[in-house]
């Protein structure tokens, strides 16, 4: 215990002194700059308020992004140009092909399931009493890290040899239904879909919550008017409600696509990218930090960027637009 204290008290002192220093520097800057009068006051204030952000963004995002772009045309150690070799490697290597196939599977399956399930539950939540309890339990997995969620599902997907007790829920259920449990993480292509379930489990709540808000915001008079016109049930939903929440639905889909493209933690924790489950973001990490090939890693990052950009632009735009209207 005393060991523990002697190691960890300095950590806390360092964190509190860092935060303290941060605020002291700010206070001193504010005090000094606040004394400036006349014409200089405004530019000085501007610099103090804005410069920290601009410097950090320049050093942390803008310059690194440009360098990553350059690295993608260079060798593993980033000290000689290799032209398009890293991109050519992507089109030729069979492993990369399997990675791309998996990534495409992820961006096709995951968003559709997340959004469809979210929509279904949002509609049903609207129809029940005490909706807040199921709503918050369904939303709860969003607070859990992908690593935590993966471990939760490691226990669900656990497999024991025949004859031993199956402690995994999935194996038990399959056993109970008369099937034969297998080592789920080794069974391709099922394993990729089992990993997707983990993602859907954590993210479905997001779609449900914003779709639920969108449904509640559909003006009552429109619905009433069309109900008077004889629309009901499925037709009312298809012709009136859904068109009014379509924008939100697409945002949920697009968020799912971006999330599925960037998925890394789940694959790394569950299979390490083995057994044909590898995806783009995990391969990017492995190329850089396992293979020590900054060139290929950077090229993969560029591909990720190119795939994410159009969706993200659309998504950010419509999400903001929606929010500014409400």
């Amino acid at each position: 215990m005393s060991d523990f204290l002697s190691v960890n008290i300095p950590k806390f002192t360092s964190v509190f002194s860092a935060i303290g220093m941060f605020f002291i520097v700010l206070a001193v800057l504010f005090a000094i700059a606040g004394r400036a009068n006349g014409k200089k006051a405004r530019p000085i204030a501007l610099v103090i308020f804005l410069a920290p952000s601009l410097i950090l963004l320049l050093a942390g995002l803008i310059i690194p992004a440009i360098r990553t772009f350059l690295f993608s045309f260079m060798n593993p150690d980033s000290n000689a140009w290799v032209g398009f070799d890293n991109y050519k490697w992507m089109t030729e290597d069979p492993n990369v092909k399997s990675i791309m196939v998996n990534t495409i599977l992820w961006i096709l399956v995951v968003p559709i399931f997340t959004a469809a399930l979210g929509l279904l539950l949002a509609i049903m939540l609207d129809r029940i009493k005490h909706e807040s309890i199921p709503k918050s339990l369904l939303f709860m997995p969003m607070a859990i890290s992908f690593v935590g969620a993966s471990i939760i599902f490691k226990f669900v997907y656990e497999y024991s040899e025949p004859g031993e007790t199956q402690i995994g829920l999935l194996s038990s259920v399959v056993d109970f239904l008369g099937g034969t449990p297998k080592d789920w993480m080794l069974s391709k292509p099922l394993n990729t879909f089992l990993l997707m379930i983990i993602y859907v489990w954590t993210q479905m709540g997001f779609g449900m919550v914003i779709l639920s808000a969108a449904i509640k915001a559909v003006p009552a008079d429109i619905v009433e008017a069309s109900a008077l016109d004889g629309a009901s049930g499925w037709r009312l939903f298809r012709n009136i409600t859904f068109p009014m929440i379509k924008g939100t639905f697409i945002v949920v889909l697009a968020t799912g696509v971006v999330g599925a493209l960037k998925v890394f933690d789940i694959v790394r924790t569950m299979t390490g990218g083995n057994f044909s489950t590898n995806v783009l973001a995990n391969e990017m990490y492995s190329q850089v930090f396992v293979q020590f090939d900054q060139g290929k890693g950077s090229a993969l990052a560029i591909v990720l960027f190119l795939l994410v950009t159009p969706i993200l632009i659309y998504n950010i735009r419509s999400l903001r637009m929606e929010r500014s209207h409400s």
Partner: protein
Amino acid sequence: MSKLKIANHNPGRKLFSSKIATVVVWVTTVIWTIPTLGLLVTSFKADKDILNEPWWVSLFNPHFTLSSYKGVLFGGDSESLSNGVLPYFVNSIVITLPATIFPIVIATMAAYALAWIRFRGSDFIFFFIFALQIVPLQMSLIPLLLLFTGGAHIGSVTVFPALGIAGDFAGIWLPHTMFALPLAIYLLHNFIASLPRDLMEAAHVDGANHFKVFRMIVLPLSIPGIAAIAIFQFLWVWNDLLVALTFASGTEEVAPINSKLASLVGQYGSGYTQLSAGAFITIAVPLIVFFSLQRYFVRGLLAGSVK
């Protein structure tokens, strides 16, 4: 939202009867909750029982123990975790607090400048920062790591006075701060720009400068927005794996608990007790935040969902 007339007659009305809806919602809720419950029950079982008896059987045959937690927190029972996860838990707190406070404060300042100290080009800068949201984390990792380890050839020595911060806490605070800024500035700008203009002008007429206006008017009025974004950032950092793996070495000195947990999964011989109790300790903090601050949590998560 409150200004809109909330539908009395629900639009989804006759699509499902409320009985079917109730059943489907509650069945889904149970299915959704079972995996977490399984982990919780498993974490209270003795090591030898975990493999011999499924957790749902143990529920009706309870012989629970805190031994997993004792072993995982304080260590001693295996090589991979000789000192327990407590040091990593401490690291997570040490990483998360500054990595939440720094970007929020810096972003609030920038948001104020862009909203209320107008100058030529302020619209352009705001749009540019907004657009930076599309740069994925993966684009910055390698060059930023090179900058921390190998120093700066681009004259940023003054920006990073302590080079060699790779593997240090500062080397994790800084990337988290940088990556948080575009979204935080954008969201806070929307919030701060909507504060009443009269208030600002009255303060300036009374002789207050920008620093005073920022402290006395903008900060107090922005607390709800700041709280939501801070909670989102807190969870983002606590649950992050990629930044931690890249910038923190896996050691007990700096690695956060989430990345330690990830490394335990792959290690041969790390038992189920370690995994289950370790995972529950890791997710306990976000779950507490979730259940106690749910309103802010939802607002922050929805705002930050495009990150």
